[in-house]
């Protein structure tokens, strides 16, 4: 558990799915090592234990919506454990529940998504993606394996430059790629035929909550009449309604945007006096919210849906939760 938390903190683990899976696996280990103290019931005590872990993780890095959903799932599973079960039985049930969650909601969901999305890629397409989303990467590689002829434009931005990671993996696999920064988006958008975006979460009003910059990409694409496909597993959907990106967000390291890696000559912000720094706020937002107007379709494990249909899935999903 500590290791996962520290990995979050150091930024070694990033990407919604990777973080969520790591967290669930850490929970699994914790459950295996767990033994109920005397005079307490497993259901109560384990729930509070998990609560403790979660608050530790939150201290390391705020949880994403998907992780919140996963934790809710786990807690509901614990709460619904029949009291007749012995401790070891309960533990194995929980572990297999977690395994099933990872498998069904993440791994299999991704497979379904890429099947759906690949049908939207045609020969001669120019696909644009922003940052590094593992679902989008899988879609591109899958379509490439299917022998579709297309080009990829990877758009990236400071300070994370995650797109370079994606770019490297795509180029290694032999895809033809163009790499550019977010500033050049209006230039490259001319020839783009599809935009594929990943998401951290999708709210019930259809707003897509994703890496900062996604909103501008979607907006430019909308202005150029290029369809925007958001690929997101259904477990990341959330019933919250959010209109802008300020009311719920995560702040990154402010120093990260004041410096440019590898460029010592860019040092305009160095050596500011404390007095001057009082007038300066370095705002490094991690996420932004894309209004549903800019999104043509959301590709999820339940199929391709318009953003207006998100509440249906959220509702159905919640029901399913209880039934699992």
């Amino acid at each position, binding site marked *: 558990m500590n290791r996962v938390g520290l990995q979050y903190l150091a930024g070694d683990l990033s990407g919604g799915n990777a973080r969520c899976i790591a967290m669930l696996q850490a929970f699994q280990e914790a459950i295996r090592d767990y033994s109920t103290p005397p005079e307490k019931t497993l259901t109560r005590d384990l729930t509070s234990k998990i609560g403790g872990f979660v608050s530790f993780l939150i201290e390391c890095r705020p949880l994403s919506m998907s992780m919140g959903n996963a934790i809710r799932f786990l807690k509901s599973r614990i709460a619904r454990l029949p009291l007749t079960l012995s401790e070891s039985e309960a533990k194995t049930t929980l572990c297999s529940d977690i395994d099933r969650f990872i498998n069904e909601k993440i791994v299999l969901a991704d497979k379904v998504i890429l099947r759906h999305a690949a049908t939207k890629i045609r020969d001669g397409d120019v696909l644009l993606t922003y940052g590094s989303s593992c679902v989008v990467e899988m879609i591109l590689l899958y379509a490439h394996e299917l022998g579709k002829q297309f*080009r990829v434009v990877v758009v990236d931005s400071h300070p994370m430059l995650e797109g370079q990671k994606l770019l490297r993996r795509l180029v290694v696999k032999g895809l*033809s790629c*163009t790499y550019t920064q977010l500033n050049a988006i209006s230039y490259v958008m*001319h*020839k783009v035929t599809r935009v594929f975006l990943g998401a951290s979460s999708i709210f019930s009003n259809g707003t897509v909550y994703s890496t900062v910059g996604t909103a501008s990409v979607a907006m430019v694409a909308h202005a150029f009449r290029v369809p925007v496909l958001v690929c997101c597993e259904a477990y990341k959907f959330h019933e919250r309604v959010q209109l802008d990106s300020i009311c719920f967000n995560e702040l990154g390291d402010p120093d990260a945007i004041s410096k440019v890696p590898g460029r010592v000559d860019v040092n305009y912000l160095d050596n500011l006096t404390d007095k001057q720094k009082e007038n300066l706020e370095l705002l490094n937002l991690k996420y932004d919210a894309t209004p549903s107007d800019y999104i043509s379709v959301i590709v999820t494990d339940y199929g391709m849906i318009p953003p207006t249909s998100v509440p249906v899935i959220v509702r159905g999903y919640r029901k399913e939760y209880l039934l699992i």
Partner: protein
Amino acid sequence: MGAQKKGATARVSEDPEELARHPLQAILLADSFTTKFRPITLERPKVLLPLVNIPMINYTLAWLESAGVEEVFVFCCAHSKQVIDYLESSEWSSQPNFSVTTIESHNSISAGDALRLIYERNVIHGDFVLISGDTVSNMSLTQALQEHKDRRKKDANAIMTMVVKQSKPSPITQQSRLGTDELFMAINPVTKQLLYYEDKAEYSKGFISLDKTLIADNPSVILHNDKQDCYIDICSQEVLSLFTDNFDYQHLRRHFVKGLLVDDIMGYKIFTHEIHSSYAARIDNFRSYDTISKDIIQRWTYPFVPDVLCGSSAIKVERQGTYRASDVTLSRSAQLGSFIFIGQGTKIGNDTKISHSVIGERCTIGSNVTIEGSYIWNNVTIEDGCQLRNAIVCDGVILKSGAVLQPGVILSFKVVVGQQFVVPAYSKVSLLQQPTQQDSDEELEYADSTSGTGELRSDKLNGDIAPDLSEIASELGTGGVGYIWKVFEGAYDEEWRHSVAPIPTDKLVKLMLDRDEDEELLTQDGNIISASGELKTDSDGNGSEDDDNEDSRDDYVSFEKEVEATFLRAVHENVKVDLAVLEVNALRLSYNMASVDCGGAIFYSMMKLAVESPHNSASELHRNAADIVTTWQKLLKSFLHDIDEEIEVILKFEEMCLESAKEFAALFPQILHLLYDKEILQEDAILRWADEKEGADESDKVFLKRSEKFIQWLREAEEEEEEEDE
């Protein structure tokens, strides 16, 4: 991508007084002194060949200018007239603060000769940049120069700084992407001193040998096989005088660099400067021509890219790396793919497909033509329905309708390919006949501007060529003009390595299979060779260096033979046991064996002697063996210090019984008993051997079973002893 005028990059900053003393000079060798670009270089010097439609030398000169060089001496040899004429007519002759002086020579046959001549002229007054006219780079020299100068201040022997760049060669072909062979360099990671340079390592052996002193003298050495030599050198004046002193130095790397590294009398040192983000590469062969052209089109060499370099002639860069001059006539149905260059005045017909290619100026391309990965120079006519894949087509070539160029084809100047003719892969076609007396020594080859071919050229190129070439027309189909050059024996296999065409997959597969086999062989011999060749160091400086590098298995076999010979000599010449021990010990040291091996080997020779000496029955054999063991037990005993060695003897014996001396198989327990009696083997050793064998396969236990009684007896004896002790 605004057009940044060249020269805008940072100039070398130096103290003003120093600058006044030495303007930075450069020697540019406008001759490669090789024949890799034949047949094209028979008619035009390599440095004037168009690289993405701009003569190569322009890239080099533009870089030198931007890097702060003020005086360039262009050394011309082959086709010197063409180079000089070109430079005089070009913009380079009238640049402020950048003077280009040509030095002409007709009898230089190597870079060494060129540098000697320049030394005689006495024009170089300080540090200079040595570069050949086919190098493309955009690196900044400032840092490298500064490092060079600082080192010089500390150590006057640091006379050269070589620019290197990271480039991992393919593990399959052992070639870099520039088509050059894998290069091994040993560099001191702290001082960056170059300690070893080998560009012609023999891969079949799978290892390279370094001098032991190299390891001894340097606290740390890194051996690289992932560096590419950019052929950009910053040299001090001494380099020129060194060439003059050593008049046999011809090749810059093979003679000069290696010569300096080996020579420890003068103590001259070469250092390296590694560049990371900037570009530097030399066009060494057709493959690098292809690679570097692509790099230029993909703008890795910025600011030395066509649209910037051409300046006035208005070449526009469009999406997906398409470079198009302003007055290209392009059919509406033509399909232009990515990464192409189309020069001025070129016409392209209907439904023609072009991708990853360069097309020069004033070319006429008909309809339904397919061009992929090809380099088409100026004034080329390609009629309808032709297909070109990975070919180089020089000026004035005519492809009649339906002609097909297979991958790797080179068509030299003004060749005509007949209708529907298919030019086979990797052929080189020229109007000139192949020179018959090809110099076998690569050093000495250079385009011969003075010999008979020169006259031939002037005849043919000036006038109408069709009549006197009619008899050879058949070689290129009806209406075709030109000779297809024959590939020399042995060179054919290598053709694909340096060709413009990408390496065919079947070659790669074949290489991979070969490699696997090799590796298996080597692994069987107990020596695993890593993909890049294993580094082995000489363990001692004297004559046995080579033996050391042989596989240890072979070593053991030859060691065993030696021991046997020694033993036999000892038996026949009645050598004293002490002397025999000494001799075997000496052998052990020189073969670097453990005493375990000695015991095994001696026992082997003893038993072999017993088998070979005349005997009629098993009992006689037993007696023979007993005699020999009795006589030589002291010799054997002196190598059996501990139980492990004794076990080794038993194992050896077992092996013999199974393989070489089957007669002993029946006598196994007796001999074992004999050895025990003579106190050569302790009972502990035998029991441990028995224990070890207990768990083995049935087949392995044959001898264990035979000697069961003996072992049983041993065990009982032991127990009794223990009881007695109690």
